[in-house]
């Protein structure tokens, strides 16, 4: 009896926190299906907000910028970062410590300061392409996360594999692509996913680093300062659906893998 009550309380608590987390999102989605200037009264169902969203060119430019910068910056950061992790891992302890500490700097540095530092640099050297400014900034803040995703995998894999590949006649590059990289692939993939999501989510660094170019965050910020237009509700609803779908796909894959591994382990044990 006591146990059932405790369980009930636990579940209610989780439910309450989830309610807090999802209520604003649910409200946004609900109100994306009505086209009223104010939200003080429900004015009936309508797809007006979506029509407005699809007619608004600036939104789609921002979405395109966000997605393309996230894809390119995550890819470049994953390539540079993976090689960097392999290089740093093979260094002597002292040098490795120095570089690892500098690598942590952008993770520790407040976004605001990182953003301002980019702005000062780009302004000083007269680099004016807003898109490239944003791209360089995103690659830079993604790099440490990729490196620290790959590093634990390297620690788990054996150093001898690389040496064995060399002994068997591989060039260093070939040993890397044929032996080391497949071995640390899960770390590389999670680094890429992390970089992609960080890039999509970023506002502060982009706000300072880029000039004249908008991603989703900058677009929403500049619009939301002036009020609450209905097509942003529609944009949020669409974003939420896409993100939820992506997360479910990614997680189902890993949950399935986990289950398969468990089944495999059970089979081995029963033999």
């Amino acid at each position: 009896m006591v146990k059932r009550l405790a369980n009930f309380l636990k579940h209610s608590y989780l439910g309450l926190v989830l309610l807090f987390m999802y209520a604003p999102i649910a409200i946004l989605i609900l109100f994306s299906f009505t086209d009223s200037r104010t939200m003080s009264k429900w004015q009936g169902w309508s797809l007006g907000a979506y029509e407005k969203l699809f007619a608004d060119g600036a939104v789609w430019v921002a979405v395109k910028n966000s997605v393309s910068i996230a894809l390119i910056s995550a890819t470049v950061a994953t390539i540079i970062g993976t090689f960097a992790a392999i290089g740093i891992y093979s260094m002597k302890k002292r040098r490795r410590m120095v570089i690892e500490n500098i690598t942590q700097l952008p993770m520790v540095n407040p976004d605001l300061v990182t953003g301002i530092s980019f702005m000062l640099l780009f302004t000083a050297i007269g680099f004016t392409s807003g898109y490239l400014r944003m791209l360089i900034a995103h690659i830079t803040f993604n790099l440490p996360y990729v490196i620290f995703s790959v590093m634990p995998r390297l620690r788990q894999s054996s150093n001898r594999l690389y040496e064995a590949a060399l002994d068997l006649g591989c060039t260093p590059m070939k040993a890397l692509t044929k032996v080391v990289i497949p071995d640390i692939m899960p770390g590389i993939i999670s680094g890429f996913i992390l970089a992609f999501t960080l890039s999509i989510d970023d506002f502060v660094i982009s706000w300072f680093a880029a000039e004249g170019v908008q991603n989703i965050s900058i677009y929403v910020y500049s619009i939301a300062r002036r009020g609450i237009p209905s097509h942003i509700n529609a944009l949020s609803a669409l974003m939420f659906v896409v993100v939820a779908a992506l997360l479910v796909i990614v997680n189902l894959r890993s949950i399935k893998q986990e289950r398969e591994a468990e089944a495999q382990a059970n089979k081995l044990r029963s033999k």
Partner: protein
Amino acid sequence: MKRSVFATPYIVWMIMFIVIPMLFILYSAFIKDGQFTLEYVRQAMESPKYMNVLLRSIVIALISTALCLLIGYPVAYILSNMKKSTAAILSMFFILPMWMNFLLRTYAWQVVLADNGVLNMLLTSLGFPKGEFMYTQGAVLLVTVYNFLPFMILPIYTVLSKIDRSHIEAAHDLGANSIKTFFKVVLPLSVPGIISGITMVFIPAITTFAISRLIGGKNVALYGDLIEEKIVSSGSLGLGSVLSIILLVLVIISIFVMHRMEVEQGNEEGGTLW
């Protein structure tokens, strides 16, 4: 060929885009017309306005970090005691909002809290008078907690679910009841998770400017707003740079303090989010 060569492109990139930009901040903070100057430092320190805003930012960041811990720890604890497969699916729901754009999450609260927003609609339809929620300190706190709560839950959950169950069983066998076991065994073992949770909430909370700008307006300006205003709107790069260095020093001090707490706990290896 040494393998460390593979890190060369990264090292070059790092120097160009991490080290040099930081030097630019130092330069614009302390150099004026080619001369070393402490003028901006004096401006930043002397004005009581700046110090008040800094104090307010620290207080708001501390309170929202404490609230996140208070709300988030039980969530992580309950999740970690569930069946593995149930916990995996449930924890996904707690991470999901984190993946949605930060600005859109903040915007959602604008829709709820605005004068003609959803909350007031509910209130008036139930016969209550309208309330004013926007542009208050409470609203800024609420939205900060909302935005950063997942960053508290996740590292604590990760650490809690890795705790060796035999420690807990041993405590029970030795006669500790569940409450005593929690405070003497589980809580101390979860300190690394708590510390990384605090770091991941406190630092963004103290440096935010979007939340306070959109939800707090002019009434609840934070240090981040001040810096943004100096750099972007009024173009005083020198003063803005000094203010951001002050912010950076504050963050470094808080990280150092938390690292010390972790070492004192005898736990070198911190819990990490990823």
